[in-house]
């Protein structure tokens, strides 16, 4: 379960320069528990770059990211975040169960058990199916199930609705609302209009 204390994620005058092109400059945001940060902007505007900077895969060209007031490297940030990117991060030669057990081994157990999480993303009964036999939408739901089984406060999602059908999108929106109600926070990029009620959504347009 999430702790009741509130967490905060703060970006301070972030810049990202790629191939001599300034993607964004002096970007600032502050996110606290229960909020969603939606990054908008056209292709190539730096949405993914910003997410990868948040994850620590890229260094920002200027600026700092603070987790609960401390620099990310000095905090519990990595134990409290989960990332689902363009790449699913799941092994197609392993079964659904083996993949989730691996994610669990790399992190701490969270709110739901593996079986509860599979039921939540409508993959119950797929435990022993090799991932290569799953459809693209099912793979995506599996990679999102990872968010439920590990302990985390911050979800960083890069286009989470890709290859999901209408039901899948509604499902993820429900999960996101629940996560925020439990004191979690989410940073995501999306081309879809997200329909989230009762959640405080901040929007940043990078174009």
């Amino acid at each position, binding site marked *: 379960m999430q702790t009741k204390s509130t967490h905060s994620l703060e970006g301070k005058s972030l810049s990202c320069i790629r191939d001599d092109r300034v993607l964004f400059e002096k970007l600032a945001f502050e996110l606290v528990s229960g909020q969603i940060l939606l990054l908008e902007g056209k292709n190539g505007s730096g949405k993914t770059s910003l997410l*990868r900077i948040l*994850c*620590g*895969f*890229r260094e920002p060209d200027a600026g700092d990211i603070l987790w609960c007031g401390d620099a990310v490297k000095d905090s*519990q940030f*990595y*134990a409290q*975040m*989960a*990332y689902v*990117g*363009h*790449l*699913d*991060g*799941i*092994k*197609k*030669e*392993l079964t659904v169960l*083996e993949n989730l*057990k*691996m*994610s*669990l*081994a*790399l*992190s*701490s*157990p969270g709110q739901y058990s593996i079986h509860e999480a599979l039921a939540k993303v409508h993959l119950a009964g797929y435990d022993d199916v090799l991932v290569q036999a799953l459809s693209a939408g099912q793979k995506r739901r599996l990679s999102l199930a*990872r968010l439920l089984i590990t302990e985390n406060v911050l979800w960083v999602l890069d286009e989470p609705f890709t290859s999901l059908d209408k039901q899948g999108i509604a499902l993820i929106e429900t999960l996101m609302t629940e996560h925020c109600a439990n004191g979690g926070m989410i940073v995501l990029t999306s081309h879809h209009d997200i329909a989230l009620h009762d959640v405080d959504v901040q929007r940043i347009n990078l174009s």
Partner: protein
Amino acid sequence: MSLSHAFFAVIRRDLVLALRRRSEIANPLLFFILVITLFPLGIGAQPHLLQAIAPGIIWVSALLAAMLSLDSLFRSDFDDGSLEQMLLSPHPASVLVLAKIIAHWLVTGLPLLIVAPLLAVFLGMPNHSLGILLLTLLLGTPVLSLIGAIGVALTVGLRRGGMILSLLVLPLYVPVLIFAGNAVQMASGGLPVDAQINILISILLMALVLAPLPVAAALKMSIN
């Protein structure tokens, strides 16, 4: 979850993966056997010459087989995003990377050890040097995996890193080749080889301690 749990989970996963894509085990082993069996055919009926160069043949083949298998170390993890997930784990990346290297050695290095005695007899190596050959392989092939991992971690982000990988890694393999080959050669002649073995042990220990850190750092750069 504890670090040791994560460490063994990574080894276990990689071994299961290797079992499910068997070519990863078979390729370097097949290469090793093929190269060694071709030498007697190429050299002709000169058992003494063959016997004299047997340690070199076996060690050069092992080295090339190890190089051949290197790319598979991080490639699929890089391509499917598992590497990103591993580096995001709160556990220290260098320990998880070490687990991957150990699994890789179990899959590509250990099989060489198992067939090496057979191939050594095939090349006419004297029986009393077989033990030393195995010992050098046991100490040397993990070093090849550890040092190779640094090269792979640096080049995994490049589309065609194969050539650069060989240039980076081969010079670093040379000390292992020299001391291991020399030890087996001396053992064949009935001379003591303590010095070479001690040096190989120290190289292994050094690689074990020092390699995982730059590998983890290089991987972080590569997924940028």
